[in-house]
């Protein structure tokens, strides 16, 4: 089985349909799963800003994609993440995986988003007018990533 991973890190608005078309599901993939994280409205939010590290962030996304593909036997995996300022309703991250069977596709995408949350160098701030607040990662995010790590073989 040919496998490939595809990383997109961009300051432009993510085009989900175009990203899904990049996924090469192939005739042996019976299952495709996707996850999209979007900017959720919260009181008086003007914009969400994502900051990244020029070198460490793409390297981490590559590493996460490789780990997810090896772990679940996925044929193709796409991880796309946006940086910069984005408005309510716009996508922040999109992950799509194709695999022979459903469980591999679903679990691969779950794993990738949980691990990305704590292992990919991004920082988030919420803008309200000309003031911002940093979003600190939640304990829950750390626990979710830890759960996957514990079961790492």
């Amino acid at each position, binding site marked *: 089985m040919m496998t490939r991973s595809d990383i997109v890190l961009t300051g432009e608005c993510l085009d989900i349909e175009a990203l899904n078309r990049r996924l090469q599901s192939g005739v042996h993939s019976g299952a495709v799963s996707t996850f999209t994280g979007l900017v959720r409205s919260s009181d008086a939010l003007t914009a969400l800003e994502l900051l990244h590290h020029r070198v460490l962030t793409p*390297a981490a996304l590559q590493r996460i994609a490789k780990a997810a593909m090896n772990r679940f036997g996925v044929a193709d995996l796409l991880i796309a993440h946006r940086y910069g300022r984005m408005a309510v309703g716009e996508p*922040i991250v999109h992950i799509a995986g194709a695999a022979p069977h459903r469980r591999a596709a679903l679990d691969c995408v779950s794993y990738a988003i949980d691990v990305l949350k704590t292992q990919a160098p991004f920082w988030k701030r919420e803008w309200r007018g000309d003031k911002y607040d940093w979003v*600190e990662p939640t304990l829950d995010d750390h626990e979710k990533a830890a759960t996957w790590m514990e079961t790492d073989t």
Partner: protein
Amino acid sequence: MKLTLEFFGPLRDRVGQASTVLTLVERPQSIPALIETLVPLLESGEALRDPHLRVAINDQFCSSAENLMLHDHDRVAFLSPFSGG
């Protein structure tokens, strides 16, 4: 030894700058020793003592347990906990 320090995430606001260049006389042998050397040299330098920070030297992550081999002109990045996705 000249070092470029870079700060990412909320830490950037805590130390009040995105990056700075410092000259050290000593050559710290570990991340904890490097941090203790830097704390008095930076405004709000004690923010570097946050145990959740990660450190990268020349774009490579380092762990606190490793022996450190710092060289002149190295770039040292201190990174707040991540919150992507």
